[in-house]
């Protein structure tokens, strides 16, 4: 139903043409800081948006705006169709599985909280355990801490080695019959580590535990195949996968979602309400109380379509090349230490320099129009594990180029000149 803007309409069979891809993203042609060409290497924080996503949102508000699942009028039906169409797009982007459902949330954080709340209330009791890893983003730590505190359960943490990889022997040891939930990130936002999620899901299932995979940093970078992963729940962030802010995805097994108590109460999530008793709607509506972020969902559907047309295997290959090239080039900078040297990495390279604090690195790079993140990346346990307060992080997207990595490295040499 949604019309794709012509300049976003790439032929699936075409080889990956990064210059052409860049033209889909209007912001990449702007300049910053007195005419400096923007070099955007902060994609793990949020990605830029292609014109077709911007157009889809604008078109919705210009032509189709109405509330969903309510009115009998023309626009309401149209908005509902667009909204539900986006659900199908996300389903197929994630590799549709029979018996699974996509629920739209306000973000990946809310999706994890939804599961921690609903699954926790339904299935976690005193004496049970929740297993996470040392490399989690705060959003995959704090909700489980809150759950464990509320239910009298225990939070266990799988340690990581010096390279930033999960120690799987420890995972095997910590996983036991009391483990009710395993919640692990697919790709670490702070280290770039790609975790063996299929193995984790298989082992957890054998131990009788359920698994949530945090895909906030994986969905934008590589093909996601829910069948191959085998998770009970998978979450993703719209704005990190070239879609709008304010929308996230919870993909989960219907038989579990069906048995989870509702998350928020309100309109759209009910079948009937009396003052004595409310009957809840079926999934996915049961977990989408209130007017959803309609424009954002439609925009995210468009983003998923865009990525599918580009081909996520090609995106992954392109970004892998950037990761290999970027790692090689960064190692040429004297006094630079890469934090996180896992055999399999995606998305991000974190580093420190002996002469300059990450904040100062970020500030001087910004002077040249290069955007990187400096800080703890909402992963303070990771920072403590490596004995640093912060790192600088260059994170790649599908539009980045080797030339941009060269600009980054040249900038780092200038940082060194100033501070060494």
């Amino acid at each position: 139903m949604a019309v794709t803007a012509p300049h976003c309409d790439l032929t699936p069979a075409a080889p990956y043409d990064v210059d052409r891809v860049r033209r889909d993203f209007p912001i990449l042609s702007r300049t910053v800081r007195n005419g400096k060409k923007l070099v955007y290497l902060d994609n793990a924080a949020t990605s830029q948006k292609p014109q077709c996503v911007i157009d889809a949102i604008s078109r919705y508000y210009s032509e189709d705006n109405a509330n969903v699942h309510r009115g009998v009028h023309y626009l309401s039906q149209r908005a509902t169709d667009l909204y539900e169409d986006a659900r199908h797009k996300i389903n197929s982007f994630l590799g549709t599985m029979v018996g699974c459902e996509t629920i739209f949330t306000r973000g990946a954080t809310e999706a994890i909280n939804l599961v921690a709340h609903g699954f926790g209330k339904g299935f976690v009791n005193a004496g049970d355990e929740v297993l996470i890893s040392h490399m989690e983003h705060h959003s995959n730590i704090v909700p489980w801490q809150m759950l464990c505190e509320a239910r009298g359960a225990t939070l266990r943490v799988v340690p990581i080695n010096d390279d930033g990889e999960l120690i799987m022997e420890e995972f095997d040891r910590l996983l036991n019959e009391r483990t009710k939930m395993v919640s692990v990130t697919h790709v670490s936002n702070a280290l770039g580590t790609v975790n063996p999620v299929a193995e984790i899901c298989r082992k957890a299932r054998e131990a009788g535990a359920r698994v949530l995979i945090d895909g906030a940093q994986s969905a934008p970078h590589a093909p996601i195949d829910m069948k191959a992963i085998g998770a009970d729940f998978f979450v993703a962030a719209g704005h990190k996968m070239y879609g709008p802010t304010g929308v996230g995805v919870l993909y989960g097994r219907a038989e579990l979602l069906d048995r989870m108590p509702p998350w928020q109460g309100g309109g759209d999530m009910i079948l009937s309400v009396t003052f004595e008793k409310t009957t809840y709607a079926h999934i996915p509506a049961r977990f989408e109380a209130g007017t959803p972020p309609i424009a954002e969902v439609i925009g995210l559907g468009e983003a998923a379509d865009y990525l599918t047309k580009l081909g996520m295997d090609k995106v992954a290959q392109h970004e892998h090349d950037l990761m290999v090239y970027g790692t090689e080039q960064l190692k040429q900078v004297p006094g630079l230490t890469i934090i996180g040297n896992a055999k399999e990495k995606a998305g991000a390279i974190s580093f420190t320099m002996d002469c300059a604090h990450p904040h100062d690195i970020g500030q001087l790079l910004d002077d040249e129009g290069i955007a990187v993140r400096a800080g703890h990346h909402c992963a303070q346990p990771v920072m403590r594990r490596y004995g640093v307060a912060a790192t600088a992080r260059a994170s790649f997207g599908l539009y980045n180029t080797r030339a941009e990595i060269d600009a980054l490295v040249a900038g780092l040499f200038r940082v060194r000149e100033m501070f060494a």
Partner: protein
Amino acid sequence: MSEARAMYEQVILDHNKNPRNFGPMAEPDRVVDGFNPLCGDTLKIYLKFDGDLVSDIKFEGQGCAISKSSASLMTTLVKGRTRADAQALFDAFHHMLKTDHTAPVDEAALGKLKVFAGVREFPVRVKCATLAWHALDSALKEELPEEPVTTE
């Protein structure tokens, strides 16, 4: 010269590389922890008082060039001064960093601290510059805080 480069004045680079009064202190009268939740930077300041005088002050911790040089310069300016002088310096410094980057700087009150005027162009970095000073402000007060002082 571009704006961010201009912010890193020679005095700042010097104090960053060779911080003064850096390290722990034996038997301090006051210890205050400072924490910047934005970047995770932490610092600790130690003070000794002799009557109304700040007789000794040291600091340690992890921080960027702005926060480290600000703490270092602060210790050199406060050491041997009265509590009231130290408080007046905090007030002047704090006031400068709250003003717009085009506003004139009170050089008489600030002295060497005027090198931080350029930080005002980068609001995120103002917190780096004030972290040690908030810890000092807290240390000068009668009651010590139970939690670390933060820039938030």
